[in-house]
């Protein structure tokens, strides 16, 4: 698929899966979509390996936008991007946006064939700063 992919990373697998459900229902299947949540040991948290796998599942040559919840999800997502390394890393961006609204808006933009830059800009418009 040539549309930008969306990855949802939450401390809670329930939040991540629920957000992905909302994206699917509101945007449809035109966007590669993956989610991950939890620390990989049954607790709340985020896990670098799980994030790397989610990026693989949602991978698109057009790039991947990642939506995160609290701080650790951002730190772990940035670490995952760095470990994936170039050339793919330059096509992966961690968005500064609320996770649910950001995922839906980014996916909506992506479903129309927008570039990674446009998808990320749409998500960022939701951010207060």
């Amino acid at each position, binding site marked *: 698929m040539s549309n930008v992919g969306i990855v949802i990373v939450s401390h809670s697998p329930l939040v991540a899966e629920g957000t992905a459900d909302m994206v699917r229902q509101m945007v449809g299947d035109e966007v590669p979509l993956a989610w991950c949540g939890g620390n*990989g*040991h049954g607790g709340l*948290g985020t896990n*670098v390996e799980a994030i790397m796998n989610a990026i693989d599942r949602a991978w698109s040559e057009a790039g991947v936008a990642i939506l995160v919840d609290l*701080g*650790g999800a951002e*730190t772990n997502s940035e*670490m995952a991007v760095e470990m994936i390394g170039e050339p793919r890393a330059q096509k992966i961006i961690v968005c500064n946006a609320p996770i649910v609204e950001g995922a839906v808006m980014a996916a909506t933009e992506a479903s129309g064939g927008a570039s990674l830059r446009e998808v990320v800009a749409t998500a960022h418009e939701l951010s207060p700063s």
Partner: protein
Amino acid sequence: MAALNLSRLIVAAADTIVAHAEELTALDQAIGDGDHGLNMKRGFEAVRSEAEAFAAKPLPEALKAIGTKLVMTVGGASGPLFGTLFMALGKEISAAPDRANLSLAFGKAIEAVAARGKSQVGQKTMLDVLQPVHEALLRGKTATEIADSADAAAEATVPMKALRGRASFLGDRSIGHMDAGARSTALLVRTVAETVGESA
């Protein structure tokens, strides 16, 4: 710093973290999300189980591999932060570092951790221990003095107000508790200083 027994150093560092896991969790329960001790224990047990394999590599590659292992096994925000510390150290350190090279590599590693956590000194984090340790390294302090400076620096996070991480949500209520990451960092510094100090 001759005849560094890397395997012994790795095991000693991991043993320290494992032995203090409950204390670290208690610190983190006060102002964080209470998973620091368990997360660090899991990560350092994973590192300890492969100590021989890490020690068989040249020091730079060993540090990078340990960092990667920590990233993958610690979890939470500590995984990327402690992982980055070791990975960045490995990038800059030489195979047989003297004090000058160690100081340089340590400084670069601190910059990498600060960038990863989008943080700086004075925000009640591990950086508040790393920075004084770096200064002690630069000033040619002994291993014991370096270990003491790390403990004092961790202690000095108690009256600080957290400005990064989960503890920052508490605002003023974060004051009066030691930062768990600062404590872990001081524990690691003391273990490394004492182990390396003995073999120097």
